[in-house]
């Protein structure tokens, strides 16, 4: 048994050799989403902030390899709701709604404070990267609409995307 043991110590199954193409081609798992350029629109009660969602990918499931759209916080909420309903995944949480900051008679700018917006931007970026990287979320039409369609059609037909 001892000679057998020593050979087992270095035993390996034979492997196919990786081709140079496979070794040097860019990886097939590229996906980057940035949430940038927050802009506050409107005046008075109608003010809202939106963000640019900039995506670059080489995953075939996404129609466009590069895209840029503008989305506001409520759009993120819409996406989260759609995914909760249609996909079987545990959707991560969004940054808080900050109702407190929307009370009148504030000494600061409430939800339009720069610091607050920056924090929210970071957290939205984390959220969308987590969701978009999820293999099951990638099949949901709502995600593709959110990331790549110029405007969100809330009356869309929910369903799965087939990538071929």
């Amino acid at each position, binding site marked *: 048994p001892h000679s057998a043991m020593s050979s087992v110590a270095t035993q390996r199954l034979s492997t196919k050799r*990786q081709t140079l193409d496979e070794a040097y081609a860019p990886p097939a798992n590229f996906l980057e989403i940035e949430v940038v350029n927050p802009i506050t629109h409107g005046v008075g009660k109608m003010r809202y902030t939106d963000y640019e969602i900039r995506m670059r990918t080489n995953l075939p499931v996404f129609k466009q390899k590069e895209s840029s759209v503008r989305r506001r916080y409520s759009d993120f909420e819409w996406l989260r709701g759609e995914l909760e309903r249609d996909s079987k995944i545990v959707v991560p949480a969004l940054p808080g709604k900050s109702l407190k900051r929307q009370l009148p008679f504030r000494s600061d700018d409430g939800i339009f404070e720069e610091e607050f917006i920056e924090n929210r931007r970071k957290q939205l970026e984390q959220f969308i990267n987590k969701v978009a990287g999820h293999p099951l979320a990638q099949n949901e039409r709502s995600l593709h609409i959110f990331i790549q369609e110029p405007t969100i059609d809330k009356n869309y037909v929910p369903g799965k995307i087939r990538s071929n």
Partner: protein
Amino acid sequence: MASLFGFGQSAEVVIKLDDHDTRPTAKIRNDDGTLETHYLFLDGETVSGTVDVNLKKAGVKLEHQGIRIEFIGQIEVYYDRGNQHDFISLTKDLARPGELIDQRNSFQFEFANPEKPFESYMGTNVKLRYLLKVTIVRRLTDIVKEMELIVHTLSSYREEMNQNIKMEVGIEDCLHIEFEYNKNKYHLRDVIVGKIYFLLVRIKIKYMELTIIKRETVGGGANSFNENETIARYEIMDGAPVRGESIPIRLFLGGYDLTPTMRDVSKKFSVKYLLNLVLIDEEDRRYFKQQATTPMALPEPASPELERSVDEDDRGRGGENGVGDGSSSNGPKAVEAQ
């Protein structure tokens, strides 16, 4: 068994095996995690020896209603404590009712080739043990002495029946891998040799590990208790692979606390081992594929064809897949999301 009234034990009972100096011993992990050492037996071996009853006080007689020794194999299910199931119980009378007058009394006993069909096992919800139990029956309290024994079961398998396992699994359009293990049955000190071959990688993998999970099932039907315990976690890859890469696996089982696979022991419990391949991506999502394998027994000294071992029987039973079968068309399966 100190008597209740503080007189102390009036007799000391010692059980001695005939071959106590040559009989091998084995260790077993106790409830509290400590290792106990006991004499080791195999199925069919004769259990014989002497029982010495030594009286504490010279000149004081010990009345009794009989002395007997039992060889017991019992299964104790923890949530049903006190309800022990003896699958073997053999009794030999050593003395008729009467008095012990001498200070030293010695009785021979022999259980010729008793059946010991199962391996000793100390689990989370169940325990299977063998013991010799001497009882001096008395009017108020019996004097009882127990000696635990360990039993190992051996099995043999023909090497050519032990095929390798090769499978292609994955999540459609996301991750396709092919894995291969050299056997479906491993003995307890075997080496799992295998490889993972990546056919398609569209997720950002961080690392990959192989875990061995022990699944203890107690009871049956609706009220069965499953207890999973991760015996080993062994990282086999660090970093993101690309298409065409092979990752070698070499996992030495000797370093882990394994028992043989036990199937439906006395209709009470089972112990199964699963090889679980886990890939973890940058968002800490887990992708896994489980494979049942069987460890077998290997006591020392072992003849080459008798081993205690670990095997694999439910091949390709899709029920335990984390990563869906690449060939199946029903899309991704059970990818856990955080």
